């Protein structure tokens, strides 16, 4: 069975290549659907496959750039990408990530910040999960109230509506983001991306996980546009990240390319699935993905407190991450196949009638 293993030229490790393709497929689907890079799944996944940690992060970032580009192309054709908004936010993101990274460097001089950063991550994930599920509950309440009055709720109605209040702050220059259908101060997306960038820089993550809900709840993007626009940003920041990690010699291009084979298919499945699932379906699934990420971080965080059970906790953490990496893509792929079947059946029916 030697043919199932490939020697990585830079790191020198031998890796099970079908595992790389499956991992790429899973995070490709998740990334294309939610608009995030999925580093919290890929890095431990690569580590499990035998990659040294130093190469796992760089390889993940490199593959993320290619995968996000594929998803952005697909979402762009659906009209889900607001390039103007993406470019505006890029300014805040770049400055924010850099400042966040510098804050961590300064804090490290004062003492160990690892635990603080991880706990901050946990608090942030809990807040995000609460926000998403609270929003879903509010929207359902509105639907019930509308049904009680014998009305049908507007298809674009949302549960939480903080964005309208933020749009009312009219600090020039005012900008119209046509694709997203937003008219607001240019400072709103810049400040939001700056804050998410600082958080991403402090936490050492790509930022898609934070930026996507920020686009929805603070900037006021429709869910589909938030996913596409976020992917556009992930593609650019991923390419920048790939360049910096590669310059430090921490990227295994062969592995990134093998992963891209799976990710190309996965990204298309994830992006096309957004066509068949309404915004709130995406938000609910996103909330579940946040919970998965939360479980994985908490399990890592409690390990030092229970040294006798660290092996067991590590095992549970691996199972949780793998469970989410396989469970969520299976759900999305099933929805995509179901939607595509229905669409094709309708097309056939229409052709027969004509």
């Amino acid at each position, binding site marked *: 069975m030697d043919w199932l293993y490939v020697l990585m030229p830079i790191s020198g490790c031998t890796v099970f290549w079908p595992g790389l393709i499956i991992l790429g497929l899973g995070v490709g689907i998740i990334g294309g659907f939610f608009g995030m890079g999925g580093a919290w799944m890929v890095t431990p996944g690569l580590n499990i496959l035998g990659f040294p940690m130093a190469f796992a992060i760089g390889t993940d970032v490199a593959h993320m750039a290619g995968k996000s580009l594929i998803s952005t192309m697909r979402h762009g054709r659906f009209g889900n990408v607001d390039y103007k908004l993406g470019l505006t936010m890029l300014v805040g993101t770049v400055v924010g990530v850099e*400042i966040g990274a510098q804050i961590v460097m300064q804090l490290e001089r004062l003492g160990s910040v690892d635990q603080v950063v991880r706990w901050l991550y946990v608090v942030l994930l809990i807040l995000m999960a609460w926000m998403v599920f609270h929003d879903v509950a509010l*929207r359902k309440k509105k639907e019930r109230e509308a049904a009680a009055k014998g009305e049908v709720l507007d298809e674009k109605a949302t549960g939480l509506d903080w964005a309208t209040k933020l749009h009312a702050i009219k600090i020039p220059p005012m900008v119209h983001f046509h694709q997203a259908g937003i008219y607001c101060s240019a400072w709103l997306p810049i400040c939001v991306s700056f804050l998410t960038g600082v958080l991403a820089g402090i936490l050492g993550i790509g930022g898609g996980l934070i930026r996507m809900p920020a686009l929805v709840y603070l900037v006021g993007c429709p869910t589909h546009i938030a996913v596409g626009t976020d992917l556009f940003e992930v593609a650019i920041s991923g390419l920048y990240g790939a360049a910096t990690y*590669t310059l430090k010699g921490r990227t295994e291009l062969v592995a990134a390319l093998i992963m891209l084979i799976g990710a190309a298919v996965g990204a298309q499945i994830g992006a096309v699935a957004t066509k068949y699932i309404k915004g709130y379906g995406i938000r609910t699934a996103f909330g579940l993905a946040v919970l998965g990420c939360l479980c994985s971080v908490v399990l890592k965080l409690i390990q030092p407190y229970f040294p006798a059970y660290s092996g067991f906790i590590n095992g549970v953490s691996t199972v949780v991450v793998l469970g989410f990496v396989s469970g969520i893509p299976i759900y999305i792929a099933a929805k995509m196949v179901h939607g595509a079947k229905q669409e094709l059946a309708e*097309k056939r029916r229409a052709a027969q009638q004509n």
Partner: protein
Amino acid sequence: MTKLRKLSLKVSAWFVGCLATMLLIAPDLVLAAKKAAANVVIVADTRRLDGILLWWAQMYNDSHLYFMLLTIVIIPATGCIFGMLADLVMNHIGIDLKHRKAAE
């Protein structure tokens, strides 16, 4: 000019000033970090490699800059090629890849 407009201009000027300062300071900070990282040298073991993998590993050992430049060209190019191939397959299946219904 209204007070609000004046305030926004001041905020804009402050933001641009901060950005310019950061861009001026950032290279120093990056170089400071590079000093510590410079102690760690990773060399690819080329003894078990041949063909294109040997060439790739040798380039890694020779120059990380060329290695980086080629990587950031290959990644998006491969992404585009795979994306277009996947597009062809999806089109062949018959799925409408240009329209979607906007709904929350």
